[in-house]
């Protein structure tokens, strides 16, 4: 029965039983002492003194919590809780012989309140070190349910004992329960940290997460706690005031026992069937709004009915039955992704001192109301309603913060690569200009230019003897309004290095220095002379440059001089050319000279023309210069995109070219480009091309934040998740019996690749669906060996896939399959839970038989090859049949030897 409701797995029982047993004993003991406390206090002091008790309790509890924190630091969390429980047992037992009276009742009230505050918080904080968030999601339910059973048991025991014995007897029994809890926890030394130790410890040198990082989220959780605390106190006041007015001391004790029993029973029901169901159905974020909404309804009803007994019972009952079940589990899960230092820095003070402070303020407010004769149920309930409104709104708006927190718990810090240089940083970079290391000087120039500090680069750098430094310097200095570089650049025209002369000519040509251009035309070096030709034409009125004799000669010249000249002409066009040079570029494109290919494409990018499109598309098949080809196609614009789409749709396009078209389309980064790619997915026959298309879509989505048609992507996501599950099922029998033959190794290896590839593709589709999320980090966490990161990633996916997008029939099964990926389960169990259990073949032969018929020809061939080794009649028949239908072994380059079993 328990297994059907709770998902407790092998190896977890001992931990759950210990934690659940301790929770049972703690809450049974607390309920017993609380019943005694409330009846003795209300009997001796009446409801009027409640506000004073709350206030005192708040102050004393703050001190007690501080003492407890000291104890935790000294002896550790577990030992501190054990010691606290033992002290609670002794202290509670000491009240048994004490004389009844207002003072003793008040002291008992405070003592029991202290136990409730310190012990329960410490228990859950200890649990946080025992379970990962994935475990917590499954196991906090049964643990909290044990607590609810404990509360129910305590209430029933109190009710039974009060029929024959005095109220004080309850205190002795409560002390006994505290001792049992201490004994159970004393044996629990299985920290989650020890299990995480094997996982990779990241970033030894990386910055510890700042206390401030994650505090925005933590602040919202703090608001929830503050509202919950204040609302609980007001609801408690409302109920106890109503009960004190309605019952005498002995009847009051029985009422409280009955009330506690009812509430505990409800809490138990929620815990056993409600919490696990709610986690699955509405998730953590849904669970956290349940209680505030009920309190809002109850508070409003109490205010409207002037504190009717039913309304206040409902309000307090909601709090009491949900606080330690649904809300507690949700709260613990919400705190899980918060960094340990933030948790220590925010949560502990919040739940100890913070809640006491809130109680003190609420109690002080109640005291003030009492003093002003305003402590009517209507007023108190109205205040409670207001608090519940804030509580509900804060809880309802938590989604984006929660996702961000999960994201940051997985993500790594990226450094700003586009920062502004402050004074000190700029000075460091300027200092580097005088470095002996040319690379450092160039780096400094690049940084200063990129950050808009080019004016800090001195013209004297043109005296540098490194051609690379000169290139970078001239590029940086030749900006409008600056002239100090001209004299030194003119001197460079006399340099013995033709590269320096070229640089100088280019810079001076731009400002129309005719002397420099003339010198260039007369230069012996073919490269410098080509720049001279370019600038001589560039500085004249528009003419048909392709007919210019100097250009014609340059294009026709053979040998290395011709190549150098053409390359430099192209370099000149790519820097300063205009549309007049398009025909020259076309001539060079048709010439098909590989040595000038890169500067040619670069020049086309500068002088775009539709006539280059066929040439550029063909060149996509060559790796060298592909990035430049992409840029040139983008420079040409929509007509290039259309041509790419047509070439991609044409299955006769050279496969190597076709393979690279998706990434070329992705560079356009437009909705049209993304949509075209997404549409092609549904009928793309090649797996390799599909992969490229998915990558291209994911790139457009993340880089350009383009929204892609979700239905197409959902179909793709579903397809790959199904493929992943299908192949995983087929792999299971093969890895259950590890065959060492080459054919088996081959088949297993290929199958594993395809399984991994299917998952990669599924995550690519997910990335395209959620361009602003770092899905790769999620994927890494899911595949990694860190259980805590995996749990956070799963929780992230859980929250992400609660969006409406995943609710329709087109997304059926996606959520379940994604979530099961992060579960700590073996493959068989994982498949079973995601509904693929019945697809697992019963034997190796059955798996191989299915694989022989796989649509992937290589996989089918490898399966057939393994079948040849296995040689069972069933497999021989399967191979024979498959060979009759298609050339099964063609992908492996072998002929079918015509198998027959003797």
């Amino acid at each position: 029965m328990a297994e059907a409701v709770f998902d407790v797995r092998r190896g977890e029982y001992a931990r759950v039983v210990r934690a659940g047993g301790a929770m049972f004993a703690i809450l049974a003991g607390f309920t017993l002492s609380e019943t005694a406390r409330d009846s003795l206090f209300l009997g001796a002091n009446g409801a009027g003194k409640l506000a004073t008790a709350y206030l005192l309790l708040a102050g004393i509890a703050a001190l007690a919590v501080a003492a407890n924190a000291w104890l935790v630091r000294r002896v550790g969390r577990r030992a501190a809780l054990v010691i606290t429980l033992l002290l609670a047992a002794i202290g509670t037992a000491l009240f048994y012989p004490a004389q009844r009276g207002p003072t003793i009742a008040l002291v008992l009230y405070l003592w029991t309140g202290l136990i409730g505050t310190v012990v329960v918080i410490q228990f859950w904080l200890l649990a946080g070190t025992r379970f990962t968030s994935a475990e917590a999601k499954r196991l906090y339910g049964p643990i909290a349910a044990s607590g609810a059973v404990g509360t129910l048991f305590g209430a029933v025991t109190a009710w039974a004992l009060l029929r024959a014995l005095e109220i004080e007897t309850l205190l002795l029994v409560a002390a006994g329960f505290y001792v049992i809890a201490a004994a159970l926890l004393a044996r629990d030394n299985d920290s989650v940290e020890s299990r995480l130790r094997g996982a990779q410890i990241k970033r030894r040198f990386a910055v510890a997460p700042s206390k401030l990082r994650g505090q925005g989220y933590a602040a919202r959780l703090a608001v929830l706690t503050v509202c919950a605390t204040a609302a609980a106190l007001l609801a408690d006041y409302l109920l106890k005031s109503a009960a004190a007015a309605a019952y005498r001391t002995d009847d009051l004790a029985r009422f409280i026992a009955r009330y506690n029993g009812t509430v505990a029973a409800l809490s138990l029901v929620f815990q056993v069937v409600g919490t696990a169901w709610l986690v699955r159905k509405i998730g953590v974020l849904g669970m956290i709004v349940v209680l505030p909404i009920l309190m809002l309804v109850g508070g409003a009803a109490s205010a409207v009915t002037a504190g009717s007994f039913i309304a206040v019972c409902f309000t307090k009952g909601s709090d009491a039955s949900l606080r330690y079940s649904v809300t507690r589990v949700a709260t613990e899960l919400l705190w899980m992704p918060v960094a340990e230092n933030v948790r220590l820095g925010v949560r502990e003070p919040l739940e100890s001192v913070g809640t006491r402070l809130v109680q003190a303020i609420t109690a002080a407010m109640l005291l003030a109301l009492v003093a002003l004769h305003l402590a009517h149920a209507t007023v108190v309930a109205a205040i409670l309603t207001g608090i519940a409104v804030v509580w509900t709104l804060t809880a309802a708006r938590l989604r984006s913060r929660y996702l961000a927190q999960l994201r940051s718990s997985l993500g790594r810090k990226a450094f700003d690569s586009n920062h502004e240089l402050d004074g000190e940083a700029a000075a460091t970079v300027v200092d580097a200009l005088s470095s002996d290391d040319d690379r450092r000087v160039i780096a400094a120039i690049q940084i200063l230019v990129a950050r808009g500090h080019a004016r800090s680069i001195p013209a004297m750098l043109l005296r540098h003897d490194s051609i690379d430094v000169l290139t970078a310097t001239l590029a940086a200095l030749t900006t409008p309004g600056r002239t100090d570089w001209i004299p030194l650049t003119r001197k460079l025209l006399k340099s013995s290095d033709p590269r320096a002369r070229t640089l100088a000519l280019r810079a001076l040509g731009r400002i129309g220095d005719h002397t420099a251009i003339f010198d260039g035309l007369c230069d012996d070096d073919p490269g410098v002379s080509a720049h001279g030709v370019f600038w001589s034409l560039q500085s004249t009125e528009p003419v048909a440059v392709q007919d210019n004799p100097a250009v014609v000669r340059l294009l026709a010249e053979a040998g290395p001089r011709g190549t150098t000249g053409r390359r430099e002409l192209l370099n000149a066009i790519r820097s300063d050319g205009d549309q007049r040079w398009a025909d020259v570029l076309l001539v060079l494109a048709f010439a098909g000279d590989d040595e000038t290919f890169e500067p040619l494409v670069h020049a086309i990018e500068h002088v775009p023309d539709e006539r280059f499109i066929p040439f550029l598309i063909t060149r996509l098949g060559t790796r060298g210069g592909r990035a430049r080809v992409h840029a040139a196609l983008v420079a040409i614009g929509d007509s290039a995109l259309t041509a790419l789409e047509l070439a991609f749709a044409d299955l006769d396009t050279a496969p190597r070219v076709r393979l690279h078209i998706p990434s070329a389309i992705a560079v356009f980064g437009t909705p049209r480009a993304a949509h075209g790619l997404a549409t092609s997915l549904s009928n793309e026959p090649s797996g390799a091309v599909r992969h490229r298309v998915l990558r291209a879509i994911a790139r457009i989505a993340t880089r350009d934040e383009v929204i892609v048609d979700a239905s197409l992507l959902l179909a793709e996501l579903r397809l790959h998740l199904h493929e992943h599950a299908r192949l995983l099922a087929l792999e299971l029998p093969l890895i259950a019996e590890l065959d060492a033959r080459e054919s088996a190794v081959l088949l297993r290896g290929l199958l594993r690749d395809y399984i991994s590839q299917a998952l990669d593709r599924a995550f690519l589709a997910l990335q395209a669906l959620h361009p602003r999320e770092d899905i790769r980090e999620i994927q890494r966490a899911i595949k990694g060996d860190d259980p805590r990161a995996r749990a956070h990633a799963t929780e992230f996916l859980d929250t992400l896939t609660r969006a409406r997008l995943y609710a329709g029939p087109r997304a059926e099964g996606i959520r379940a399959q994604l979530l099961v990926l992060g579960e700590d389960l073996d493959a068989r169990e994982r498949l079973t839970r995601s509904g693929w259990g019945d697809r697992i073949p019963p034997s190796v032969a059955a798996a191989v038989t299915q694989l022989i018929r796989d649509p992937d020809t290589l996989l089918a061939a490898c399966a057939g090859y393994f079948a040849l080794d296995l040689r069972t009649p069933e497999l021989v028949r399967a191979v024979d049949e498959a060979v009759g239908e298609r050339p099964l072994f063609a992908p492996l380059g072998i002929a079918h030897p015509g198998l027959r079993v003797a």
Partner: protein
Amino acid sequence: MSPDPELDDAGRRELDVRVGFGLLASEVELESLLSIVRRVDVARGQLLHTRGQPVASLFQVVAGRVELQAPDAPLWHVEDGGAVGLLDFALGRSHARTATAAAPSQLLELDAADYRDYLEDNYEVGHRILSQLSNRITAAMIASRDSTLFATSDLTHQERSFGDVEIPLVERLIILSRMPVFRGTSMQALAKLAQNAVERRYSVGDVITEAGTSPDVVSLLVEGTVELVLPNGRARREGRHLVAHLEELATGPRSITASAATDTIVLQLEREDLIDRIEEHFDLCMTLLAYVAGEQIRVNNASSDGRCRVA
């Protein structure tokens, strides 16, 4: 060591990154690298990582000196411009040595997982690292004048002889999967390489690759023995290995001539094809890097003064 990135001097960091990685990365690639690199100053004696610890960070030494120690192994030290942690990262294992700053040092630190992502996104950087390391290792092996570093005779499997039979695709696949240089590569990547590989047969004395040329193929020895003529010695290679050892993965003019010492079968992969496969199957890049890292360890251990460029 500065524990706070806010104190990290942005200008110096960018300078150091551009100087350290500028040759291996384009402007765009540098930009994404800048987002994952931080600069740390470490005092003498500061521990960077201990032996057995998983690789969480890689370091580039901007200035200073880092020592790497392991029991029963020669001491390595890395100085300006050198890399620490790259070999263990490439081999996908925990740190084999404890690294300590032997002098006050300035380092660039990269998160290992971020760096892996960076290489995956910028596969050409991975290829450039591979080829640069191969160039350097080959040069260091030649400079050591120890020609045994090039020699192989480890026939780990009793290999089947193909004689005059053309090697079927499935056998090519099995051959590639057993080659140390491709150990761990996905079957899918190997299948594509096997499909595109060209089988060449050489008779005794035929030259397979010649010093001074820049072949655009990677030659894999399948059967027979090749003789390498080094600038300062000779070595023989047999078994299923790269013909001219790491020079096959390097770019630029060859310094080694490889010729057939017996009848020899070679599978040749076009370099372009190999790079395309690296782009499609990142695991291939990491496998090749792991192989090169293994050879770098041999070179480091053979270094007389323990000075290493990459550790």
